[in-house]
């Protein structure tokens, strides 16, 4: 099954990259854009099986490897049922 982990800088953690993108968007004329935060999206495929177990595995992967939990928050979702 397909799954997705979204990883973003935690609230209160500075995001210089987000700031730079925000400024660039302003320069391009998108004046109203605010609060830009840049994170990562990790798409992956898991063996078919139980959703709850899959989510537990994703959480485990995120805690151990995918996210740096000192500065990043993450969220996991199962995207579909079929292969």
């Amino acid at each position, binding site marked *: 099954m397909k799954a997705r982990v979204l990883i973003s800088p935690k609230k209160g953690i500075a995001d*210089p*990259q987000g700031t*730079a*993108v925000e400024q*660039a968007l302003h*320069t*391009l004329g998108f004046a109203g854009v605010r609060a830009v935060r*840049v994170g990562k999206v990790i798409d992956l495929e898991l063996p078919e099986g139980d959703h709850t177990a899959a989510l537990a595995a994703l959480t485990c992967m995120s805690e151990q490897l995918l996210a740096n939990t000192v500065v990043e928050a993450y969220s996991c979702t199962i995207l579909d049922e079929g292969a």
Partner: protein
Amino acid sequence: MRFAVAVFPGSNCDVDAYRALHDVLGRDVEYLWYRETDLSGFDGVILPGGFSYGDYLRPGAIARFAPLMEAVVRFAGRGGMVLGICNGFQLLTEAGLLPGALLRNRDLTFLCDTVPVRVENADTAFTRCCQNGQVLRLPIAHGDGNYAVDAATLAVMEQRGQVILRYCAPDGTVDEQHNPNGSVANIAGIINGQGNVAGMMPHPERAAEELLGGTNGLFILQSMVQELERRQHEASRC
């Protein structure tokens, strides 16, 4: 003959390029601030290495919209010579002046080294002082040098001789073992279809003095100088 070395916020090999052209080759060089819009009076433009806009989002993604880049696009359109080195190469692909894109290095780490590269086409304005197949030792220093392009475009580029430099073994053999960053077909440098815009990850400007470990980069820089001399000569004949 006047060179412009572009300076974007975060450029940092602007100095390296300036020194090689000015101090070593004795050429007329000027730094050009990214807010400038006028390239008249310049014959060649160097887009230097560094981290324009901190490489935020993607290397070159934000610098591409600098006012100076509009002038560079026009300059290139008129046939002006543009060399993008490292971050400059990334910028040229982002701006659409060169095909493809530069991804994170295969091993995901920044890589500072001096590596052999083979000259694939010595019949260009940027390589005319070299021989086909000649192996140059050039410094590299990048985190995003993994050249990627779709297969169809690559086929056309190969056919037209647009690949000018490839990573190789010291004896010139091109193989995966001597591909430092994962670039498709070991590509280290390319040129556009018109032959006036080139981009390369290696730093020829850092290989211009014996004291600093070698002068192989001069083959590239001298080629540019010769081409511009040739152009001047032609212009004066007309």
